[in-house]
């Protein structure tokens, strides 16, 4: 680890180590929480910004590797920064810069001594994510992978007094651990037995197609468990809301992306020789995950659980992008594969940005009003104007609406799926557009969900009497949210710059880039393959709408007049307009329950007719619990019950066991 030549890898390692140091400092100052919130978190933000710049630099610089002094005897820790890890470092640094700024303000109020411990776990969490992105051998990767899970577990169970948090933390760590073991086994398959675990050795190991598929399946489900893919997603809606809001922003925004990074790194880089059947599996799982995630998000009335289910949905969209690129790569169309990969990675960055923004918004609401249940919110736009604006930008971005960044990545995914005619097998060729339709459906459903969230939370009348009027978010918090909102706009309006960077990444991974005609089309027009094929210019969108907005506003004011007066809204002749008449979050989701009834498991308590205080209670449950998870738990219980009979207390039976083992072995030994 020589510092003579200062390359991206040295920068990344030093910055991550500084993060750990900051964590330690936070713990040291545990007695003085103000010091922690005023100095440690902003310093963490500065380190995050530096890491983002390193990532940007790494995407354009040559690959740099280094060896750290620590690690197993014949396997010291190898670290490597190439364009792919550079991109994810940019993602990690950029998003955690905003979140750290927000946390500086968010934790200021709590004031108790747990802030020191919280800052230690927070910064160790960031540092372990940093190391995951630059790890270059299986051992270091696994160590930092599960340290990430461990540190985030302690953050999830920060308020460990509530039984629900503890249960969420337990399920989270259990699924993370099982996922990690399956990743480990996939490395085991790849490593070829001579004890050399560096990623270069894994790349060179050539595998028979059977073992390559086994490695793919293990890696896919291992990383899928961490990303919240469909069958293994149950921990996500429990764990993310349990953590404090900035931490759930970090977990939803960035930690899920390290799983995507792992998947791309192992499948594209280490296993290589991708087959289109793998791509099809990823595609189908992605489509199912995205549709399932958004359908369940629509049913939630807890804001943070809703956002967590949306993370599941967006992971599905990312998997669709990556699945498309694997299908094209498997059937020999590198250019279309590049487009799919760029769409997937671009959506990873977009989701990190707007999901982080939305969770920070939810945190600001929780801090000022103490509310998490949407049915108790309402009319907050008057009390929290800034948060409302930033939340609106985040909501428009996640609903994939044109001028913002959500639309760009979804548009690219559509363009990639329109390359379907290139494929030979007619089944896949017709399946890809149907997956595109599922993507469109889930995008539209997200739009509906965020109209519900924004409408119920911010607009209309207040549904719940608050003890004192909620205060707007503090200066730090607004700065954090502003940074992420600006990022949404920048990524939405100037996609060509980021697509160019991603082109380097795909050059490094698939040895193929977008056609140069697409690159040459300047910063105004985003062109995926050829301008004849399709082009999109977000800046023109924004300019024309703004111009028309200003033009009509002025013309109407000049030609006619701007007079305005206030009065009661139309109440259809009904005298008292109370806030209970407004539609609740569950009410808004009623059409979805009607149309997609079989998907849900609904427990409904309809009050009796003569009930003086009728309360309508309804609980939507995830079918996966009693379809997959409780059968497994029951089977384990059943099995341990039978095995329990082995230990049944009588000494003569124990002697009999040892006698029979002896006889059996003697017979076997002959």
């Amino acid at each position, binding site marked *: 680890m020589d510092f003579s030549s200062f390359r991206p890898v040295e920068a990344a390692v030093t910055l991550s180590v500084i993060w750990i140091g900051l964590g330690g400092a936070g713990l040291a100052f545990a007695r003085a929480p103000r010091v922690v919130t005023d100095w440690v978190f902003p310093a963490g933000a500065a380190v995050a910004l530096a890491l983002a710049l390193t990532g940007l630099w790494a995407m354009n610089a040559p690959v740099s590797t280094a060896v750290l002094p620590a690690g197993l005897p014949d396997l010291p820790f190898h670290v490597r920064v190439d364009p792919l890890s550079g991109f994810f470092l940019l993602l990690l640094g950029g998003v955690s810069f905003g979140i750290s700024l927000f946390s500086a303000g968010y934790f200021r109020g709590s004031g108790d001594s747990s802030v020191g411990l919280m800052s230690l776990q927070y910064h160790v969490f960031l540092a372990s994510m940093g190391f995951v992105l630059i790890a270059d051998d299986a051992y270091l990767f696994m160590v930092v992978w599960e340290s990430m899970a461990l540190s985030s577990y302690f953050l999830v169970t920060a308020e460990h007094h509530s039984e629900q948090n503890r249960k969420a933390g337990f399920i989270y760590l259990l699924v993370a651990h099982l996922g990690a073991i399956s990743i480990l086994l996939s490395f085991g398959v790849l490593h070829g037995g001579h004890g050399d675990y560096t990623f270069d050795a894994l790349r060179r190991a050539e595998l028979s197609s059977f073992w390559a598929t086994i490695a793919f399946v293990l890696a896919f489900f291992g990383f899928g468990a961490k990303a919240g893919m469909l069958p293994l997603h149950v921990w996500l809606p429990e764990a993310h809301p349990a953590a404090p809001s900035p931490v759930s922003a970090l977990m939803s925004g960035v930690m899920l992306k390290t799983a995507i990074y792992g998947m791309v790194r192992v499948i594209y880089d280490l296993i290589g020789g991708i087959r289109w059947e793998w791509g099809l599996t990823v595609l189908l799982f992605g489509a199912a995950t995205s549709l399932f995630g958004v359908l369940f998000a629509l049913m939630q009335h807890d804001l943070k659980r809703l956002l967590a289910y949306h993370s599941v949905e967006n992971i599905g969209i990312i998997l669709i992008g990556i699945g498309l690129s694997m299908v094209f790569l498997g059937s020999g169309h590198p250019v279309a594969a590049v487009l799919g990969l760029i769409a997937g990675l671009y959506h990873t960055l977009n989701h990190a940005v707007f999901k982080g923004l939305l969770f920070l918004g939810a945190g600001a609401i929780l801090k000022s009003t103490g509310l998490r249940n949407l049915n108790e919110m309402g009319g907050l736009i008057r009390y929290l104007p800034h948060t409302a604006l930033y939340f609106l930008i985040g909501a428009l971005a996640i609903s994939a609406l044109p001028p913002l960044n959500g639309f760009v990545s979804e548009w690219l995914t559509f363009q990639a799926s329109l390359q379907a005619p290139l494929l030979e097998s007619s089944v896949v060729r017709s399946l890809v557009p149907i997956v*595109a339709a599922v993507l*469109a459906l889930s995008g*539209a459903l997200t739009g509906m969900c965020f109209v519900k969230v*924004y409408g119920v939370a911010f607009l209309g009348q207040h549904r719940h009497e608050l003890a004192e009027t909620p205060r707007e978010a503090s200066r730090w918090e607004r700065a954090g949210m502003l940074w992420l909102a600006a990022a949404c706009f920048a990524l939405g309006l100037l996609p060509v710059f980021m697509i160019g960077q991603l082109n380097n990444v795909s050059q490094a991974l698939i040895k193929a880039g977008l056609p140069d005609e697409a690159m040459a089309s300047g910063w105004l*027009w985003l062109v995926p393959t050829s301008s004849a094929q399709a082009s999109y210019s977000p800046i023109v969108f924004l300019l024309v709408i703004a111009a028309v907005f200003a033009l009509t506003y002025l013309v109407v004011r000049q030609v006619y007049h701007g007079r305005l007066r206030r009065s009661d809204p139309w109440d259809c002749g009904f005298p008292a307009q109370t806030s209970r008449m407004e539609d609740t979050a569950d009410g*808004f989701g009623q059409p979805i329950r009607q149309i997609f009834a079989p998907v849900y498991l609904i427990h409904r308590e309809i009050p009796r007719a003569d009930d003086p205080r009728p309360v309508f209670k309804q609980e939507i449950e995830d079918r996966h619990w009693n379809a997959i998870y409780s059968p497994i738990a029951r089977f384990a219980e059943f099995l341990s019950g039978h095995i329990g009979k082995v230990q049944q207390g009588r000494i003569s039976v124990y002697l009999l066991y040892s006698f029979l083992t002896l006889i059996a072995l003697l017979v076997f030994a002959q």
Partner: protein
Amino acid sequence: MKQASGIIFQVLQSVLVVLIAPLVLGWVNQCRAWLQNRSGPGVWQPYRVLNKLFHKDAVLAHDASLLFRSTPYILFGCMWLAVGIVPVLATSLPFAPAADVIALVGLFALARVFVSLAGMDIGTSFGTLGARREMMIGFLAEPAMLMTLFTASLISHSTSLPTIVDTLGHGELVIYPSMAFAAVAFVMVLLAENARIPIDNPSTHLELTMIHEAMILEYSARHLALVEWATSLKLTAYITIGFAIFVPWGIAQAGDWEGLLIAFAVLLVKLALAGAGLALLETVSAKMRIFRAPEFLGTAFMLATLGMLIHFLLEA
């Protein structure tokens, strides 16, 4: 020189279409009146309504926020842009590359989201009721819409409307069965998106049955005028997209003036026919129950997917 004429064409097309949009609505209402053997208020009625509304004083609810007041202008801007992009009179206008078909769908989704939010801003139950139903129709219609546009773009290997128009219109005449399916599906989506009869009755006063009207219940004066104008613009935009994909003949190239005149004439004829067809469809069918809408749009989606499969199987 070509660049200058392009810009002039662009401005001309935008202004012209914006002006004739209320006319299209007036014509449709007039045709409906004739079909129901009523004399009807006349084709220019929408202009009179707009003029009246612009003169009145705006009345706002107490807790209407800034969002509520700015939504009409955003709506109008979006529709103006949509009409500017679609090759109504001429193809390959300067704004054309700004968006392809998918971006247009996104633009309409943006408009729909803003209208729904404005509806919910007042805090009465009607606004949220309308918003919920509008979003439901929206998410059901979007996959069907995209599937029809995919069929067209799979044939012409591009999603940008000028290229589609060039390949389908200016190329030699070929009958595409898949396009037939897509056309029927497109008409069903058009009816749903523009709140026409089978899904929603634009001229109803029963709050509980409204979808689109419920959201703009609270608007008055200039805001209501802009919203009404935007609605007619949306209808015109949808109809012109339909022309561009299914009936692309007669659209001029940017720059040749005489082609423009012919295109304008052809456009008027096509709009008249389309308006009459729409009126006929509306008088023939009655408004469906709100929870029959999913089957309606489900069939639209099936038809579009069938069209695409036919395209893959028959290579047509």
